[in-house]
């Protein structure tokens, strides 16, 4: 699998993501500069976490207009696979490649802690190593992860089975009204969503920071392993 990570000014989890990808693919991903206008030949484009443009104005708003984004849209339209994590998710929503928006966390504070995600479908390249209902732990670290969309969009997401992950308790129970379970207050406890063709996935937490037992576990690794299985040519 050939993966590339897009680096915007202010992206800061590109190294974490590179480690995770290297761990499962055995080779270093390409680093793509926001100012480039063409992607190299890739199977997977990753928009990593961080504070692109300082997260000023709105998280991801300015990065969504970076020069490279035109080719990323083309890549998406051609059926390419894209993973957006944290700021990357925000950028994908700002760019209109995924529906909805991410508002300030309900408690209005930055949250850096572990959370638990329930896997909502297991037939996508991003989730195929899990079974529906599996729960895994992952760190989250963001100030604006409160997923929101108008009710038609939410209905379309739910009806189309396009929620990839929900915040849950360790036992798998989902309680969107409980800030301990759904820490940022997301609608329906949505932590990650999929595009219509299931080839673009955006999520707030950081599975890439939990791929090494030394850092506390490998709970995030199946996501990357699944991508390799699905996308290897």
């Amino acid at each position: 699998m050939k993966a590339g990570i897009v680096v915007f000014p202010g992206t800061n989890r590109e190294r974490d993501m590179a480690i995770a990808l290297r761990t499962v693919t055995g080779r270093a991903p390409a680093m793509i500069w926001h100012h480039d206008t063409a992607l190299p030949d890739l199977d997977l484009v990753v928009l990593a976490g961080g504070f692109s443009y300082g997260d000023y104005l709105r998280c991801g708003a300015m990065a969504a207009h970076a020069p490279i984004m035109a080719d990323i849209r083309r890549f998406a339209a051609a059926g390419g696979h894209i993973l957006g994590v944290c700021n990357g998710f925000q950028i994908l929503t700002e760019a209109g490649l995924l529906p909805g928006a991410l508002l300030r966390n309900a408690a209005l504070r930055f949250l850096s802690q572990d959370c638990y995600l329930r896997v909502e479908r297991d037939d996508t390249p991003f989730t195929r190593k899990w079974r529906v209902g599996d729960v895994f732990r992952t760190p989250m670290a963001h100030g604006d992860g409160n997923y929101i969309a108008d009710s038609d969009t939410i209905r379309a997401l739910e009806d189309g089975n396009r929620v990839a992950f929900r915040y849950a308790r360790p036992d798998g129970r989902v309680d969107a009204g409980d800030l301990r379970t759904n820490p940022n207050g997301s609608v329906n406890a949505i932590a990650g969503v999929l595009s219509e063709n299931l080839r673009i996935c955006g999520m707030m937490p950081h599975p890439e920071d939990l791929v090494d037992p030394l850092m506390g576990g490998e709970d995030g690794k199946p996501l990357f392993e699944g991508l390799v299985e699905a996308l290897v040519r």
Partner: protein
Amino acid sequence: MKVRVTVMLKEGVLDPQGKAVAHALHVLGFAGVGEVRIGRVIELDLDETDPAAARDKADAMARGLLANLVIEDFTTEVVA
């Protein structure tokens, strides 16, 4: 010309910041405060002399970048 773009969350979108401020005002002893909504203002110095043209330009910037129309509305006004 100076144009001010005001961006507010759409009606119906929950505004936790506004809610928190309303609560804090109440705690500080300010009575009679109903709903509080918080938004952003962006003041642009534009190289334009015609107010209508300046507003048009600001509108385009708001649609293109300054507001996220999924969740926000905006208004523009020429202030100087």
